[in-house]
């Protein structure tokens, strides 16, 4: 029996047809994986089901009755719940409070906490979520927070659970836990739609796979057992792409960038403890680790944004000191981890964004006046060379898709002379073809004999891109290795602190 | 977007039409009107009405004048602490060019009026309570000394000690507390009027005189007054704007009597009387000057004779015996008759008191126990 079916859904946004007559059906207790690149329409489709958007055409049936879902509350009443990529939790509240907020069991005018606790505890035990309802959300890991979000849905009697990019922020171990949880839910009759572009997980958990491309339904009857990653990628993108990222470094030169004795204490907590590493010219050094183990502090320190307790940075054998400005102008360019808050000014034009950081270079400014013509030319060059899809260079940065925003940031970083590229989360939330493009650019940059420092929460990415890997746990480098010497599972153990530091004679290996 | 353009265009058109069509209507100065019975037109400005005080009183004067004289008026309100708005308003009336006189009530409107008067030399301006010198500005104000003179006489009688049954006195040494806001000629004149009034009937009274240093400082006024009451003052008065509230509070707390300069700060249980300056009389005089063609540039001060200054006893809880009222009436009459001239400055008091003395007992007033 179909729990949800959507017929001929069409949604037109000004200028584009986001969805063109798309059908979707979901069975009771089925896990449906919705695949597609960014902009393929999968989020729009789910937003329609969840009542955020309203379709221009088409009908939605819930348990074979036609329904009109105008707002998320309508969806929730039907039992359709969505877990967003960005969690909507109050960090200062306990898990229990977060879950019951808005649907508190009442005892007169008061909240019946006993009843609430019992129910939440019951759900946790039933699905083996392994959480204590009284712990504050601020103390939870990302994976645990996601479980709270799912619990929130279950607490509201979700029959259909929509998960938007659920694995984007999880470590491999956490991903396995999540997949297991999903299977548990399926067993109890919950239907799940998972929006993703992670093909491996799709294959692991889905009962059925549905692929959207440019607002059009390509296939919705793919069985995981009958397909493979290459085929899915092909279906998504429309052409075949290279999924094996790794390219050997060819010309590893002398040490270009070196960090010594880096320690940072924030609010009395040791965030980084005596970090030392070197990057050779023509080499990508990647950092793997669960988010929150000091990556942010490390990035801030080596781009001059934070002032550590102690640190010596050597660039081409010369000491590098000062603030973000000096680092930038000595050639340490930065692609920050959070595009929208750190990398771009969403409400300004592409031109304004393109010269961010270059704004007082001679081509952009003369005698304190901005050189609009040169800036326009520079922006055009960035757009052309990095294949940024945009109508023109005057549109606001927020109008671009995530992938194009990231391409613009990369273009900005690499279009002017530089020595070291510090790049964080280069492909987070970005579709496959844009990711491929960005990876290619990073390789090309390395092959010009430059240093690349890569931080990513996506272990696959770090594993495949890096020539050398650092594993960061609790503010310390617990492992330095060549990626091929360890399996991803082994690395996961290091990332979670399950395996202790092995003595890698850092100095010896780095100097050879 | 097209709509927006249309709206803007429509708006501009309307503005344009008004801009072209109106000047003709205003170019009819009063003097050009046909002969015969010409109605006098007056423009009137004051502070915001509804203050239960000064501005309402002035408005009442205009209404009284309306009963007495034949004229038309237009009126407007403006905050007199905003010289820019005041000037704009008065300038607007002057530009209209149809008013025989522009009467403006309030302090501090001299500078704005001067600026307009310079540009419109043929327009007559009459100011009440603001003073300046221009060939087309007439200033009407009170004789400050006379405003408080009768209050002074009453205070002198009371402090002599013959009426402790009517007005309770705490001790035998007569002492009066007097606060002024600023040390300027006008304020000094007011103070000397009061002091002269006291000593006119009772030369032995000591008056403690303090300059507060501002017109918005009830705290200091209260402090000074409380101190004086502790020294034995039974009557406390002053002329210091909002400071009056501080004096009144000190009187209430320590059981002394208060004399205010405005009905708005009069407390019927604690006030001995009120030293009135009747703004409505001023407005009446201004209208009269306009209607009866008695406009005369320069400053015109009016006092008890014209009824501009008066002692206010209405509503006061204290019941004064007839002989006191008779005595006050006699003093009022001798000022009206010009027999008695009040001193204008503190330095003149001693010689004035030496030359002028009223034996109040002739009216049956008890001077002393």
């Amino acid at each position, binding site marked *: 029996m179909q729990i949800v079916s959507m017929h001929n859904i069409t949604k037109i946004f000004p200028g584009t047809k986001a969805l063109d007559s798309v059908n979707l059906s979901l069975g009771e207790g089925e896990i449906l994986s919705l695949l597609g690149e960014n902009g393929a329409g999968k989020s729009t489709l789910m937003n329609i089901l969840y009542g955020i958007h309203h379709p221009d055409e088409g009908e939605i049936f819930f348990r074979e009755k036609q329904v009109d879902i105008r707002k998320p509350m309508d969806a929730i009443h039907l039992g359709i719940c969505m877990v967003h990529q960005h969690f909507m939790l109050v960090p200062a509240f306990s898990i229990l409070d977060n879950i019951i907020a808005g649907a508190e069991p009442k005892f007169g005018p008061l909240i019946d906490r006993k009843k609430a606790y019992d129910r939440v505890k019951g759900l946790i035990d039933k699905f083996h979520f392994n959480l204590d309802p009284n712990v504050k959300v601020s103390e939870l890991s990302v994976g645990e927070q996601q479980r709270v979000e799912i619990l929130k849905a279950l607490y509201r009697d979700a029959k259909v659970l929509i998960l938007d990019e659920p694995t984007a922020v999880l470590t491999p171990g956490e991903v396995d836990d999540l997949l297991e949880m999903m299977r548990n839910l399926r067993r109890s009759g919950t239907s799940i739609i998972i929006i993703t572009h992670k093909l491996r997980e799709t294959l692991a958990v889905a009962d059925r796979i549905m692929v959207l491309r440019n607002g059009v339904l390509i296939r919705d009857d793919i069985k995981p057992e009958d397909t493979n990653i290459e085929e899915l990628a092909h279906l998504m993108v429309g052409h075949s792409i290279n999924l094996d990222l790794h390219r050997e470094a060819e010309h590893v030169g002398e040490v270009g960038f070196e960090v010594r004795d880096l320690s940072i204490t924030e609010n009395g907590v040791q965030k980084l403890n005596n970090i030392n590493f070197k990057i050779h010219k023509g080499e990508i050094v990647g950092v793997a680790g669960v988010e929150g183990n000091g990556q942010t502090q490390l990035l801030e320190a080596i781009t001059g*944004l934070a002032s550590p307790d102690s640190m010596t940075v050597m660039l081409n054998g010369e000491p590098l000191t000062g603030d*973000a*400005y000096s680092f*930038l*102008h000595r050639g340490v360019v*930065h692609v*920050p981890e959070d595009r929208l*808050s*750190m*990398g*771009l*000014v969403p*409400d*300004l034009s592409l031109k*304004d964004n393109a010269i*961010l*950081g270059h*704004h*007082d270079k001679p081509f*952009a*400014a003369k005698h304190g*006046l*901005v050189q*609009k013509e040169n800036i326009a030319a520079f922006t055009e060059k960035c757009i052309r060379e990095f294949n940024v899809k945009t109508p*023109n260079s*005057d*549109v*606001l940065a927020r109008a671009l898709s995530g992938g194009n925003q990231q391409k613009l940031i990369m273009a900005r970083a690499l279009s002017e002379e530089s020595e070291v590229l510090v790049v964080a989360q280069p492909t987070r939330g970005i579709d496959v073809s844009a990711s491929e493009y960005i990876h290619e650019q990073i390789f090309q940059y390395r092959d010009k004999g430059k240093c690349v420092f890569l931080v990513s929460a996506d272990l696959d990415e770090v594993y495949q891109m890096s020539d050398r890997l650092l594993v960061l746990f609790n503010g310390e480098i617990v492992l330095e290795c060549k990626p091929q010497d360890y399996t991803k599972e082994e690395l996961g153990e290091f990332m979670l602190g399950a395996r202790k530091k092995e003595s890698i004679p850092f100095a010896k290996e780095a100097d050879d | *977007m097209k709509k*927006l353009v249309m*709206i803007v265009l429509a708006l501009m058109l*309307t*503005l344009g039409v*008004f*801009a072209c069509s109106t*000047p003709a209507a*205003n170019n009819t100065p009063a003097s050009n009107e046909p002969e015969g019975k010409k109605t006098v037109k007056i423009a009137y400005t004051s502070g915001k009405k509804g203050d239960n005080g000064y501005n309402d009183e002035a408005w009442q004067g205009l209404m009284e004048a309306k009963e007495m004289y034949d004229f038309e008026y237009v009126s*407007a*309100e*403006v905050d007199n*602490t905003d010289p*820019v708005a005041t000037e*704009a308003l008065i*300038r*607007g*009336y002057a*530009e209209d060019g149809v008013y025989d006189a522009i009467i403006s009530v309030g302090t*501090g409107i*001299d*500078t704005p009026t001067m*600026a307009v008067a310079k540009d419109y030399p043929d327009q007559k301006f009459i100011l009440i*309570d*603001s*003073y300046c010198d221009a060939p087309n500005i007439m200033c009407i104000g009170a004789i400050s000394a006379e405003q408080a003179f009768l209050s002074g006489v009453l205070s002198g009688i009371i402090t002599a000690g013959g009426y402790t049954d009517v007005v309770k006195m705490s001790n035998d040494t007569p002492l009066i507390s007097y606060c002024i806001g600023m040390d*300027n*000629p006008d304020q000094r004149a007011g103070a000397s009027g009061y002091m002269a009034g006291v000593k006119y009937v009772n030369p032995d009274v000591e008056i403690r005189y303090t300059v507060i*240093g*501002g*017109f*918005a400082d009830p705290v200091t006024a209260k402090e000074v007054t409380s101190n004086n009451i502790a020294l034995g003052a039974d009557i406390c008065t002053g002329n210091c704007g909002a400071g009056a509230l501080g004096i009144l509070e000190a009187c209430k707390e320590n059981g002394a009597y208060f004399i205010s300069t405005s009905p708005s700060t009069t407390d019927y249980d604690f006030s001995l009387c009120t030293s009135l300056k009747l703004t409505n009389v001023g407005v009446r005089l201004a209208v009269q000057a306009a209607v009866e063609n008695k406009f005369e540039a320069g400053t015109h001060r009016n006092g008890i004779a014209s009824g501009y200054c008066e002692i206010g006893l209405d509503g006061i809880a204290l019941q004064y015996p007839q002989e006191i009222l008779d005595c006050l009436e006699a003093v009022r009459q001798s000022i009206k008759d010009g027999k008695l001239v009040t001193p204008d400055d503190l330095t003149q008091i001693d010689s004035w008191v030496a030359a002028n003395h009223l034996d109040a007992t002739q009216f049956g007033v008890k001077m002393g126990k």
Partner: protein
Amino acid sequence: MNKKKFFHISREQWKRALNKVMVSAVSFIASIVIVGIVIWISGYSPIETYVSMVKGAFRSQTSIALVFSEATPLLFTGLAFAIAFRVRLVNVGIEGQMMMGALVGAIVGHFVTFLPHIPHVFFTMLIAGLTGMVIALFIGFLKVKLGANEVIISMMLNSIFTYIGSYLANGPLRAKVTGVAQTEIIQETALLSKLVPKSQLTTGYLIGLFIAIVLAFILDQTVLGYKIRIAGNNRIAGETYGIKATKLYYIAFMISGFVAALGGSIMTQGPITRFSDGAVAGYGFQGISVAALGAYNPLGVIFSSFLYGVLRAGSYTVNRTTNIPYEFVDVIQVMVVVFVSAPQIIFSVKKWFKKRKTAKPKHLPDSPAPAPDQNQ
């Protein structure tokens, strides 16, 4: 050719500018309509009121001069607020800065007697402006170094400066012959010349226009303006790429304080001719409304201050010729702030209109059949 490129405005920029103009225009019109309803409820005719306002504002050369003279202080405070707001600073301290500018202008204008006309005018304005700059810098210092909230600090400072001004006007600097708290009239040499005879309009308005154009130029054409736009839109991104917001806070506060105090001095050197307690009160807060209506753009502020000039000049006519309480003009100004700062109201109204428009074609999917028929 080169010049054309220099001021080249692309389609996208036009679209965004028009959008902003639309928000302001709709806010303004909506405020006028709402206040019109209030006037109507109070028992007066809104049409008559507005007509007599506009008539009054445009009836003669001098009344048009009044429009601009009323716009003058608002132009300065509007610009002062707008420039600070471009780095997301809420400088409500312009009220106090303007007042101190007016006070210092009165002091320098009165006590400096050795300077000839033009130098005296500019010297007075300069010292007054610098005073405002120092005050604003102090607020900036408290914000940047001590993490104080600039709104609270400047509100407190406003009170302090109001009392300082009041004290000086009542006490040490009080004019000899005067009924109210004001200083002596400044020297003739420090007075700005009248732009239109028989009016309050002085060359100060031109100075305001000049400053607006300079600020617009700075924002659009200079690296400083670029940094201000970056820091104002996304402080973190700016700092990631070496644009220090704190430095820009100082600069924006300095410009804002300078312009506000300059406006105060121009009032002293223009229509007021002295410092009078309370004479420039309120312009600072009205400046917030002016800046908001002008979309925080210096050129927009020229227009919005002009509109308010019309309103205020017109309100004098209403005051003079009718019994309608002219305070409704203040209500319009406040309503404008409400609408402009909550543009969502306007957008939702727009959406609602759109929905109504598209309500009919919504049935189209039901009747796609006729099309093939026609083909046959």
